[in-house]
């Protein structure tokens, strides 16, 4: 009973704290000055059609580097907690159905290609490295579900992850040396606006982010699945 009263008090406290946010908030009619500058300048300056991408990858590129670092630390934490201590206890597992197996054989390559498409077109269409990486990881989940004996080569996974992470930093430093600042995309030719090979280094950076995120998420899933066997 006392616990319930406490819970009601805490909920009421949060409601009172958050209510002004909803009540006093008037929707904007205009873009804020900073957003206006981004929208006006980024197509000319960076050559990316997707303004969200130019904010994430270039204007706020350092934040994205921190985000990738947080994701890496979380993946490392999952790997640390779920590591197997030498025991290899196999429990009997039921194989998956024929429908799932055939469906996976058909869909898995398509999902991989779609993931690559999403992160290659991050500067033109909605999407980007993180989304593409998650799509790739979802394809791997399908593969793990369809055949329980699938073994993922962890060495390849770690190699892809560390190489793409290092290349991301290297591109950032190249921007510092050849262009105006860290993670500046303009050291490559900006190209024709709205085509695949445009926006300087943004497709390159997003490809490395996509590979890194994909490898990390596959690693997380692999750790969780291994723990069950």
């Amino acid at each position: 009973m006392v616990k319930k009263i406490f819970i009601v008090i805490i909920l009421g406290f949060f409601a009172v704290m958050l209510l002004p946010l909803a009540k006093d908030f008037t929707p904007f009619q205009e873009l804020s000055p900073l957003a206006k500058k981004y929208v006006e300048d980024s197509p000319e300056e960076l050559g990316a059609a997707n303004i969200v991408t130019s904010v994430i990858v270039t204007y706020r590129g350092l934040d994205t580097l921190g985000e990738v670092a947080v994701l890496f630390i979380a993946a490392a934490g999952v790997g640390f907690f779920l590591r197997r201590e030498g025991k290899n206890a196999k429990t009997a597992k039921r194989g998956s159905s024929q429908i799932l197996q055939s469906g996976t054989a058909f869909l898995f390559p398509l999902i991989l290609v779609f993931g690559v498409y999403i992160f290659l077109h991050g500067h033109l269409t909605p999407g980007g490295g993180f989304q593409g990486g998650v799509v790739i990881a979802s394809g791997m989940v399908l593969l793990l579900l369809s055949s329980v004996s699938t073994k993922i080569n962890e060495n390849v996974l770690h190699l892809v992850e560390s190489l793409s992470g290092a290349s991301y930093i290297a591109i950032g430093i190249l921007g510092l040396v050849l262009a105006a600042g860290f993670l500046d995309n303009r050291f490559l030719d900006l190209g024709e606006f709205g085509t695949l090979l445009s926006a300087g280094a943004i497709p390159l950076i997003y490809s490395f982010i996509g590979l890194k995120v994909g490898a990390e998420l596959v690693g997380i899933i692999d750790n969780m699945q291994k723990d069950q066997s």
Partner: protein
Amino acid sequence: MTLITILGLILILIGIWGMLTQRNIIKIIIGFSIVDTGVHLIMVSIGYIKDRTAPIIDSAVSQADAVNKVVDPIPSALVLTAIVIGLAVTALMLSYAIKLYEKKGTLDINEFKELKW
């Protein structure tokens, strides 16, 4: 005062209620995810401007007219970051849950008394 902001607020309250009342660790993690979603909704609704479209320059939104046609790109970028971090934190919490289940054979939070006072 917009509908989406209020819906986000309600989601946050539902999530906090779930975290406080549920005893199954997995359900507490689900409560956390609901709070996460509510925060994302509020952030997106702050950047939204009525009758405008996504900040992507293409045949529908010309470069010259973009300032009057697109929503604020910065909250979208922030929410993208927040979603990824939320995913990472959820994965970490689930791996804690797996480890706790291995230790005690139960997911009931009341069974874990070591740090209780």
